[in-house]
């Protein structure tokens, strides 16, 4: 496959990158409602439209629930769609999120992670993504601005694959990435067209056409319901390998690989592993390197795919490790552990009796700092040596 030409490097915020990502994929219909910290995406897309950079239908809806319904319907009718939200907006569209995944509409949405109401907050946190984890969507978490762009392109490749046909939520830390300007390579739109071209070669997916006697959203009665749910979970399972495949294709073509479901950083010879996600992974890498200098054999797993949970890749990467520390940027109601840690603990049979330490940090825009992660490494290291350890630690509460 001929590789893409070099694109233009711009210094732009995470939000602007989200808009560029959408623009490069030529959506038919975009709907957006402003919410901090995502409003800039809607503004940038509106500016693109006003300047003739995109010719997509742009609907300035009166609420996020409407935004999701607009793009769901356009997707069911056969179009490529895009929307963006955060926090309260995500939970406001919760009924539409369920319909979107239930109808198997390949919607791509960008979610700027922010704390979710329960406690009113305008600050970064992954609670919004967590609160929607049972909506039946694919959820992927990105670390930096370039990855936002790349993941949006990969998201269409995943969502619109006839083998998958699931909506994809691309997450990035609000405030940390949304307003952070970094150097981002913006590919040539023709190269993105070429990358996504295989989607057009598929047989056209089921779509709603006036005059054709088919209806979307029929009542699922008894086994009809069960069958549709079963097919949905099977598609979720297929997402895992597909994410790895697409990552490889993307890397071959554009020159950037992200590891697929998870990225493994210095894990091969590591004794202990730290698992993190989102922008905190960048900080974690620094700590891993520093600790390695001190002789601690620590590795990092960056969790990219959250839904479906990348169980197989994690089991493989964690085999033989002596202790694991999981940093969660959210909380799990009903379990004392953080959500990612809690889900990892499901794999006790495969992982054996390895200590898994849960750390809750980075809520409400409080930074996950180098000393914090340093402490995590030290404590996990002690646990690996058989010393007693704390099951779950709320780092900010201990400061």
């Amino acid at each position, binding site marked *: 496959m001929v590789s893409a030409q070099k694109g233009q490097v711009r210094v732009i915020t995470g939000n602007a990158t989200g808009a560029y990502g959408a623009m490069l994929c030529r959506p038919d219909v975009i709907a957006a409602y402003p919410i901090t910290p995502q409003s800039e995406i809607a503004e940038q897309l509106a500016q693109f439209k006003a300047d003739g950079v995109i010719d997509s239908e742009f609907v300035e809806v009166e609420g996020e629930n409407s935004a999701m319904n607009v793009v769901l319907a356009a997707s069911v009718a056969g179009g490529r769609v895009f929307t963006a939200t955060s926090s309260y907006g995500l939970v406001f569209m919760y009924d539409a999120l369920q319909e979107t995944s*239930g*109808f*198997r509409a390949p919607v791509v949405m960008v979610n700027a992670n922010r704390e979710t109401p329960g406690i009113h907050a305008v600050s970064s946190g992954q609670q919004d993504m967590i609160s929607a984890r049972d909506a039946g969507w694919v959820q992927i978490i990105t670390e930096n601005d370039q990855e936002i762009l790349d993941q949006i392109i990969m998201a269409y490749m995943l969502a619109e694959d006839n083998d998958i*046909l699931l909506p994809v939520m691309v997450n990035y830390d609000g405030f940390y990435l949304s307003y952070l300007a970094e150097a981002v390579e913006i590919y040539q739109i023709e190269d993105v067209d070429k990358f996504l071209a295989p989607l057009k070669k598929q047989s056209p997916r*089921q779509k709603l056409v006036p005059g054709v*006697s*088919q*209806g*979307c*959203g*029929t*009542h*699922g009665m008894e*086994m*009809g*319901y*069960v*069958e*549709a749910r079963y*097919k*949905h979970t099977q*598609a979720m399972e297929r997402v895992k390998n597909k994410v790895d495949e697409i990552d490889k294709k993307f890397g071959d073509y554009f020159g950037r690989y992200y590891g697929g479901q998870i990225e493994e950083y210095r894990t091969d010879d590591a004794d202990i592993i730290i698992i993190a996600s989102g922008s905190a992974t960048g900080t974690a890498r620094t700590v891993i390197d520093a600790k390695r200098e001190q002789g601690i054999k620590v590795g990092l797993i960056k969790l990219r795919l959250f839904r479906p949970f990348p169980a197989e890749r994690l089991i493989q990467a964690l085999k033989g490790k002596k202790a694991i520390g999981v940093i969660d940027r959210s909380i799990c109601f009903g379990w004392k552990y953080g959500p990612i840690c809690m889900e990892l603990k499901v794999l006790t049979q495969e992982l054996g009796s390895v200590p898994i330490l849960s750390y809750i940090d980075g809520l409400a825009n409080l930074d996950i700092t180098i000393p914090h992660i340093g402490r995590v490494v030290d404590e996990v290291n002690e646990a690996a040596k058989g010393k007693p350890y704390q099951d779950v630690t709320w780092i900010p509460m201990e400061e």
Partner: protein
Amino acid sequence: MVIKHKNIFKTQSAWSNADEKMLCLDTGSWRTSRPVLDKDKCNYCGLCALFCPPQCMNDMGDHYEANLDFCKGCGICANECPRKAITMVPEGEFTDG
């Protein structure tokens, strides 16, 4: 897991398809009385057919007749007929019910 279920949907999610399966209810079995037309009084104005909610009146050229497979016996035709040409007669008086 050994799957014995035979797929109901050809699609991945729940879509209905009228070409594959058109449903129809035996609503004619609901009624307790049926419309009976006095043809001498009928002037083919068509109001009975237009106002019939299930739209089950058949055009017989110079009068209308209810399709008894679907007539629910609501009585609107009888009530609306400007010439009172239709009477609702209890089902008990017929043997073809």
